[in-house]
């Protein structure tokens, strides 16, 4: 048995967890660990330019692969810089293990150089955290951290490692545990038959059902089961922002994303439904509008791996707490197509089609050859969709571009749409694209961003050069913080408080070039599609495509604050209420 130090045991434990990539940034308290990384070749360390980006990159990797993303940062500012990334992963239930260096045990609490209370600062935004108290416990803690991060409702786990715990002179026998014992942790799986029967009975009786699927279906790898259920019932399916791809967007039963900027037909269907089956979605405020006025005529079934998400916001008739795949299979075994009210559901699907015809999204904005001066941001997404055959991994930042991408890029597969839905973290797009590209070097990976968001983690252009990551950056440049501007237009009388840059924007083409990448600027709708093809076809280059879009475009539909799900603005001049 080879002896290890705490530092080398930590890295060896990661290798035993089949970790291939560790995103991070070195510093004093983590130096023993970095020395251990140098002396092995199983775990590759990726040096980012800012710890926030390390966490987002690991997060993008985790979302795209379904594996646990892994991060290593130093104490103090290294740890605090990681916080935004950890909170982002926490809100979207992404499995991460974040290892933070800490000052030596005897210095904790003395305000030592680069000391911060990482356990305290991260507590509300982690699924769990560990402070290493002896080097010998490192293998077991790593094992526990991975299990906790990945099982049940996934989430980030922090391991805080005081420097003396990794002392290279303190050696011990290393053994990686096969399993672990935890009296205080359990994972729900199947549910009792009576609950399945209640749910099936409601599904079979429904005349106006909606399957409302969220990120839990992606995390729970239950897309196939969802498709089977939709087929048996011929039921309309809507996805949340986090659930895009859980059900194929080009499927005839798909009615689009719901919520704040969901499609007219999806929001109307939620309002008029007589049964809502929430699958791995949590009735987030962006998808319910006013909970008091939410879908009052609908019976509700809620399937979620998180017991705490059930009846947190909306009371339900049947709750199914457990693993989505297992529970959906239990339902599929019970439900009988003969009992489905086919005639009523056909009528219901027609009603939804009518809504789509009234105020649905126009997915053909490129074909119509608009004689417009400015490029519409929606056209850029449609052009991207065409150039990538709808098959790319799309990461995004936060704002209007995120909503346009969600609305107009038709995701047919899970794990292809990578965005910060819960926390809404600007700066997420580029580093998460790096994580995806590391995992899928042969796939198109595109970061759809805006000139506001991209500048929050733009330093990662350097990381992309170092590791040869030919991601594509599509910058919807409207010369303003667009989503804030939209709200200021609609609710603050057009008073543009602090959203303009006053000619201080960099020349993004030159900026990309200075990092050794390719820059492109597009201002003319006539050349958009050709340049997009050119951009996507440069497989071995990072291309930064700076597209000047109409600065006055708003995202619609938009739910009216405080209203029900049918109360929407569908354009600058039209509203449904």
């Amino acid at each position: 048995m080879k002896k290890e130090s705490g530092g080398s045991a930590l890295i060896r434990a990661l290798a035993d967890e089949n970790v291939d990539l560790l995103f991070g940034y070195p510093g004093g308290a983590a130096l023993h660990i970095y020395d251990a990384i140098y002396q092995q070749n199983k775990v590759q360390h990726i040096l980012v330019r800012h710890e926030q980006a390390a966490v987002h990159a690991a997060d993008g990797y985790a979302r795209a692969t379904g594996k646990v993303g892994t991060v290593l940062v130093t104490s103090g500012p290294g740890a605090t810089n990681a916080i935004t990334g950890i909170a982002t992963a926490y809100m979207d239930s992404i499995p991460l293990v974040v290892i933070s260096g800490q000052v030596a045990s005897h210095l904790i609490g003395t305000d030592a150089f680069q000391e911060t209370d990482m356990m305290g600062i991260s507590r509300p935004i982690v699924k769990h955290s560990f402070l290493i108290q002896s080097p010998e416990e490192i293998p077991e803690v790593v094992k526990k951290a991975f299990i906790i991060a990945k099982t049940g409702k996934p989430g980030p786990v922090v391991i805080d490692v005081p420097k003396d715990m990794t002392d290279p002179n303190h050696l011990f026998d290393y053994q990686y545990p096969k399993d672990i014992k935890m009296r205080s942790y359990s994972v729900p799986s199947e549910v009792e038959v009576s609950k399945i029967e209640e749910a099936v009975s409601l599904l079979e009786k429904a005349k106006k059902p909606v399957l409302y699927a969220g990120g839990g279906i992606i995390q729970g790898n239950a897309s196939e089961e969802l498709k089977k259920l939709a087929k048996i019932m011929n039921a309309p399916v809507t996805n949340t922002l986090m659930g895009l791809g859980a059900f194929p967007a080009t499927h005839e039963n798909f009615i689009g994303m719901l919520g704040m900027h969901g499609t007219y037909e999806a929001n109307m269907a939620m309002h008029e439904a007589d049964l809502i089956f929430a699958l791995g979605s949590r009735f987030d405020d962006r998808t319910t509008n006013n909970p008091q006025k939410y879908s009052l005529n609908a019976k509700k079934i809620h399937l979620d791996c998180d017991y705490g998400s059930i009846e947190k916001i909306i009371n339900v008739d049947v709750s199914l707490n457990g693993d989505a795949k297992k529970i959906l299979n239990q339902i599929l075994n019970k439900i009988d197509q003969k009992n489905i009210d086919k005639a009523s559901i056909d009528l219901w699907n027609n009603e939804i089609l009518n809504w789509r015809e009234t105020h649905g999204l126009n997915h053909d904005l490129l074909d119509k050859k608009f004689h417009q001066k400015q490029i519409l941001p929606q056209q850029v997404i449609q052009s991207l969709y065409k150039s990538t055959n709808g098959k790319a991994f799309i990461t995004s930042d936060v704002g209007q571009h995120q909503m346009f991408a969600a609305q107009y890029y038709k995701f047919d597969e899970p794990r292809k749409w990578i965005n910060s839905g819960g926390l809404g973290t600007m700066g997420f797009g580029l580093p998460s694209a790096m994580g995806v590209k590391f995992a899928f070097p042969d796939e198109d990976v595109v970061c759809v961003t805006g000139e506001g968001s991209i500048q929050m983690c733009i330093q990662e252009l350097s990381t992309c050069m170092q590791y040869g990551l030919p991601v594509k950056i599509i910058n919807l440049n409207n010369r303003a913080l667009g989503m804030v501007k939209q709200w200021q237009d609609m609710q603050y009388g057009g008073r543009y408080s602090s959203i303009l840059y006053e000619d201080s924007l960099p020349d993004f083409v030159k900026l990309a070039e200075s990092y050794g990448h390719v820059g492109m600027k597009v201002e003319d709708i006539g050349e958009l599609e050709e340049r997009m093809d050119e951009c996507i076809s440069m497989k071995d280059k990072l291309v930064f495509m700076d597209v000047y879009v109409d600065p006055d475009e708003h995202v619609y539909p938009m739910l009216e604050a405080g209203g029900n799900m049918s109360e929407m603005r569908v354009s600058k001049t039209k509203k449904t209420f």
Partner: protein
Amino acid sequence: MSHISILMENQPGALSRVVGLFSQRGYNIDSLSVAPTNDSSLSRLTMVVKEEESVISQILKQLNKVIDVVEVQNLSDVESVSLEIAIVKLKITEKEASKIIESAFPIVGEIINHKDEFVMIKLIGSNHEVDDFLLSLNKQKFLEVTRSGLLGMGTGENFLISESETTIEY
């Protein structure tokens, strides 16, 4: 108002996770008492929480999600007993103190210290009894009080004990 009993791992950070959950989610704690049990790897808490039924149900779910929490029991859902301990310091004579204690029945009181012109009384009772006792005191003579917060336990077979460890393979 609910009394919640919690069994949790007796390790650093565990209490802050439980208490932090309350501030993080905007729940109010009325009182909290905590100490290790006969099994020194476990701590037991009793919490008094003044929230509506729907919020209590959310609190119980969120507490169950905290990884250091082993078991949670809503004492308000089962038959249970509860009591509080208080120490009161008064500026009175020992004779006056004895009189106060006698008249305070059913609350159990006892003089535990007498130094200079100050007397300390130990009280054991329900929290209403302790409230009533404190209200009855002469404000000029009543100097300070410390209360344990409520301690509670389910009666009969309403146990709050740790189930055996579950082994998780992966």
